[in-house]
């Protein structure tokens, strides 16, 4: 009796997959893989941005301390208080300014700002990619 049903049921119509379904699936997986990479990259740049903001605080403190210790501001203020002397002794004045320039502090601040802007640029770009792909996927 059971065999009769099994004999019957092998006649069931089989639904064949539409042509190209496997290619669509592989394309979706490829898209998903790219999306995953973008998300991971965004997360990395997010961490880098946070690190850059965190680094900006000590960099600024270093710059502030250095600028006070080297007397750069005092030399620079001569440009406003005694322009004539600065012009007459311009070579000595330029050397004094260069020597007192807080190189480490400025470099640290600029590096932090540069890394922050660089990260933000990629985060914005990746977010745009994710939004665009989500819209395409929903369409």
């Amino acid at each position, binding site marked *: *009796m059971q065999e009769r049903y099994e004999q*019957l049921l092998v006649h069931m119509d089989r639904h064949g997959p539409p042509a190209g379904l496997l290619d669509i699936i592989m394309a979706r997986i490829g898209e998903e893989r790219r999306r995953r990479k973008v998300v991971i990259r965004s997360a990395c740049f997010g961490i880098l941005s946070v690190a850059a903001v965190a680094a900006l605080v000590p960099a600024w403190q270093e710059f502030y301390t250095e600028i006070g210790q080297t007397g750069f501001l005092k030399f620079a203020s001569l440009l406003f208080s005694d322009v004539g002397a600065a012009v007459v002794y311009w070579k000595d004045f330029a050397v004094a300014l260069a020597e007192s320039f807080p190189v480490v502090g400025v470099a640290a601040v600029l590096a932090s700002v540069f890394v922050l802007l660089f990260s933000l640029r990629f985060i914005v770009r990746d977010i745009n990619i994710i939004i665009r792909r989500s819209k395409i996927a929903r369409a």
Partner: protein
Amino acid sequence: MSSDMNALADEQLVEAYRAGDETSLRTLFERYVGPVYNFICRYVGSDGDAEDITQDVFVSVWKNIKRFDRNRKFKTWIFAIAKNASLNWIKKKKPILFSAFENAQGENVLADTLSDPAPLPDELLADVDLARKLSWAVAQLNPNWRAVLSLRYDNQLTFQEISEALSEPLDTVKSRHRRALLHLKELLSG
């Protein structure tokens, strides 16, 4: 290379993919896209939706393939994912189907009132229009029953494998199979 891949068992293809061989994934999916699509068509009863669900199933398989338990059969695993995806779709679209026939214990008052399956008339098996009639009759069944029939007769799974794929006790699977046959007989004889 491709013929070598085709000779590999499903689980070996999974291992090959995990080891970094991208082509093994396509070979594996090529093997299952038809059976899974057919199973989903039977389960949800809609070709158009089956295509979307099939895509979701394979993407889900790809996402979880690294977590695939080596002690399980790939075949039962992929059908388990297909069943869950189909179930979610039915829950969203047609919640009434669930309460229509079966209770939580898998019992069905309608099926229990039917007589035992009798031998099928010879003329039915010789009917040239049999495939169409069968498809119609199967489409009338409860999705859970259709799933059992599809796995058993379209995909040649054993009851034990069906039990694993559907995460249901073996007795429930056998009971659904019997009830599905009972109901089919009623539909085909009517």
